């Protein structure tokens, strides 16, 4: 192995009621990509924050080039040549892409006039390197989540750090964007940069990482060992203590099942045209498409958030007009798991219980709308348990949970709500493989008990595992439909074919 650039030795970090990390060690070597793996809440992000000076370790020490160091804040780490892309987005929304990327450069000299032309030119360089074609003078708030993610990566690259920490950088990237990123990371490795890479997508980890550290419950399950000889199942075992079970679900036939949702020739002011879509009782219909295809917007139109201005929407055979989300939920019993849990899925400053219960308050309330925690708990808690949410108590603030656990809450909320149609939008982004499997089982169970499910996901394996039928959408129109044979190669080829046929036409 090469020379050790950075080392954390026996570090611990405690939060009120939570031991996030205990006696954890890791070594990063020059010119390598090091994987950091673990379930949701294992402590990966916390470790990264310790390394970058956001938190200070309660125990243990950090060594840079073998010498103990103390970081009193992010600036110290930055000055020591450590760059980071955090799991959460950290951009200034009103600033331009270019200024965001180059913000660190101005931090030193408060009165040296800013040369925007220079900034944009510099930023462009980094954007090009990532293959990201956006105008650096554009406002960040106008970008999609994926592009923001890339901007943050560009921002970290612009520091030309010796150590680069990437906390789930690919969570919201498309496969295409991921490939470009990996090419770049490999190039940096060859230039001698030492990188730490966090991801729940094991294929990615296996394709680019040289060594690996696994965390389990805040402890080292393995420390800085070579990836050589480690297979997928070995990694899984290190992470969750047992091997992965791949479900082998029987094919189901819904020809006879009554339709729950029927869209006929639906059009929206957002641009949807001629949408014909049926979801039957107990069926899971997958809606696949590339990012930007208009799937989320279609879901929101069904929910009454955006108007439908053409065609007809039928629920259980009845034509309906859904004017607002509250009606969709309370009158028509449709639920929607948002792809954007921070903005639309959760109320981060409120507790686990309040988040899990929000959709059922009205239902469980008694006379005068009176309501107790107990009555909410009775209904909501089983689902929180089922998803194995890692939280010290139901009264924990959701914002303090790890990303994956937050995602579980935003799903649990709808399981508790008991809807007849559930629309799930990218439900497993950032979720670890164990939970993902649970969630898949749960959705399958839910459909078995009669709930109709419309599944939006960009995760092809997930789509093929779960969906009974796959509808492909491209540029706000339906491109075709496939019966899911669960044959991965054939299905993914079929889907891509549908997408490109339309694109070519």
């Amino acid at each position, binding site marked *: 192995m090469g020379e050790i650039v950075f080392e954390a030795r026996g570090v611990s970090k405690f939060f009120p009621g939570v031991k996030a990390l205990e006696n954890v060690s890791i070594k990063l070597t020059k010119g390598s990509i090091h994987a950091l793996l673990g379930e949701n809440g294992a402590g990966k992000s916390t470790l990264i924050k310790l390394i970058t000076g*956001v938190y200070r370790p309660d125990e243990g020490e950090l060594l840079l080039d073998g010498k103990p160091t103390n970081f009193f*804040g*992010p*600036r110290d780490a*930055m000055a020591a040549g450590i760059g*980071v892309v*955090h799991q959460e987005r*950290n*951009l*200034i*929304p*009103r*600033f331009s892409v270019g*200024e965001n990327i180059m*913000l*660190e450069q*101005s*931090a030193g*000299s*408060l*009165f*040296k*006039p*800013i040369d925007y032309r220079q900034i944009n030119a510099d930023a462009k360089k980094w954007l090009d390197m990532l293959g990201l074609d*956006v105008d650096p003078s*554009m406002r960040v708030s*106008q*970008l*999609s989540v994926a*592009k923001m993610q890339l901007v943050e990566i560009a*921002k970290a690259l612009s520091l030309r750090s010796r150590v680069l920490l990437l906390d789930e950088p690919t969570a919201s990237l498309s496969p295409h964007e991921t490939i470009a990123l990996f090419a770049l990371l490999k190039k940096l490795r060859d230039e001698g940069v030492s990188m730490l890479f966090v991801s729940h997508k094991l294929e990615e980890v296996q394709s680019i990482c040289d060594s690996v550290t696994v965390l389990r419950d805040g402890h080292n399950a393995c420390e800085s060992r070579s990836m050589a000889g480690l297979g997928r199942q070995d990694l899984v075992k290190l992470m969750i203590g047992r091997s992965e079970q791949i479900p082998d679900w029987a094919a189901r036939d819904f020809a006879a099942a009554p339709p729950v949702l029927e869209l006929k020739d639906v059009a929206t002011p957002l641009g949807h045209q001629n949408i014909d879509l049926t979801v039957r009782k107990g069926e899971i219909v997958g809606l696949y498409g590339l990012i930007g295809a208009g799937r989320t917007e279609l879901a929101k139109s069904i929910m009454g958030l955006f108007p439908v201005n053409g065609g007809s929407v039928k629920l259980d055979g009845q034509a309906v007009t859904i004017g607002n989300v509250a009606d969709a939920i309370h009158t028509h019993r449709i639920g929607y798991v948002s792809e954007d849990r921070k903005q639309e899925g959760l109320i981060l400053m409120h507790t686990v219980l309040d988040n899990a219960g929000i959709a059922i308050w009205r239902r469980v309330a008694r006379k005068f709308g009176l309501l107790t925690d107990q009555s909410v708990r009775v209904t909501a808690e089983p689902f929180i348990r089922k998803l194995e949410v890692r939280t010290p108590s139901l009264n924990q603030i959701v914002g303090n949970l790890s990303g994956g656990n937050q995602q579980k809450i935003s799903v649990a909320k709808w399981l508790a709500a008991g809807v007849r149609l559930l629309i799930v939008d990218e439900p497993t982004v950032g979720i670890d493989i164990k939970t993902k499997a649970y969630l898949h089982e749960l959705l399958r169970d839910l459909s078995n008990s009669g709930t109709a499910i419309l599944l939006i996901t960009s995760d092809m394996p997930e789509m093929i595992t779960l969906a009974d039928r796959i509808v492909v959408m491209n540029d706000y129109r339906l491109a075709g439909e496939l019966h899911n044979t669960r044959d991965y190669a054939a299905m993914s080829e079929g889907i891509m074919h549908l997408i490109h046929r339309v694109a070519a036409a």
Partner: protein
Amino acid sequence: MQSLWRADWFGPLVVTVVAIIFIAAFNPSFLSPLNIQVLLLAISVNMLIAFSQMIIIAIGQMNLSVGAIGGLAAISFAGMMEVWGLPGPVAAVLALLIGVVAGFFNGFFIAWTGISAFVITLASLSIFKGLNLAVTRAQPFYGVLESVKAFGATTFLGPLPWLLIPAAIAFVLTWYLLNRLPLGRHILAVGGNAHAAELSGISVPRTIMAAHAISGLLAALAGICLVARLQIGQPTIGDDWLILSFAAPVIGGAVLAGGHVSTVATVLGVAIVAIITQALVLFHIDPFLVQVVLGALILWAVGVNRWREVRVARSLKRI
């Protein structure tokens, strides 16, 4: 044209122009040199008051003590001339210094304790106003130097009041600060997302202190200008700045949560309020109805800008 329509200042500008045309059509004396001078006088000082708050809005906080700082600087300025017989410029510099120190006091406590700016500036409002009362015993200082009085009362190039000069300088510097200097960008960055700013290596506490010091400086400058304009050092100076200080930036599209203010649009916000106030006098509105009309016109002004914003938002699609 597109970018014009998108600019924050476009809505207020349209409102301002429409208001001027409308009023002048009914009352030509509105555009008389004397009237323009009066209008500019009001705008000059109110602009400084609005900037003083705008800087703090930019960083995502509130400064309830702008008026108290301005008042303290004003009576210090007048008092130093009357009691110590200091020359005008020296007194002015010292009064500005008092403003900076007072602002820094706010910023220091906010940054150091992490207690909300609202609470800290509320407490300091009491302290600064209390010092004012303790010094003046609610009596004005009359000993304002003739040169200062002349500065507040005379004009150049026709109707342009000399008081426009400090305001104009403050305008240019504030614009430059917020649009071109790292310090100003840091203020906006902290206002837009303090955590992200911190992670980008910006010192949040230092930025907060700097913003408050600048706010104090601008408030003090406003106080000094008011002494020149009113010709006496009134202890009540600053008592009712608060509402205006927020109204003008907000009319100018400032986001109260922080991270976005517009210097140009704020000036137009100040101008709109001044024009409306003056129109109410010009048109002999029943004094008992003045407040009703003022409220309605402010709603109209912000409504126009809001309408533009909604249109702009619709035309921008995420990419």
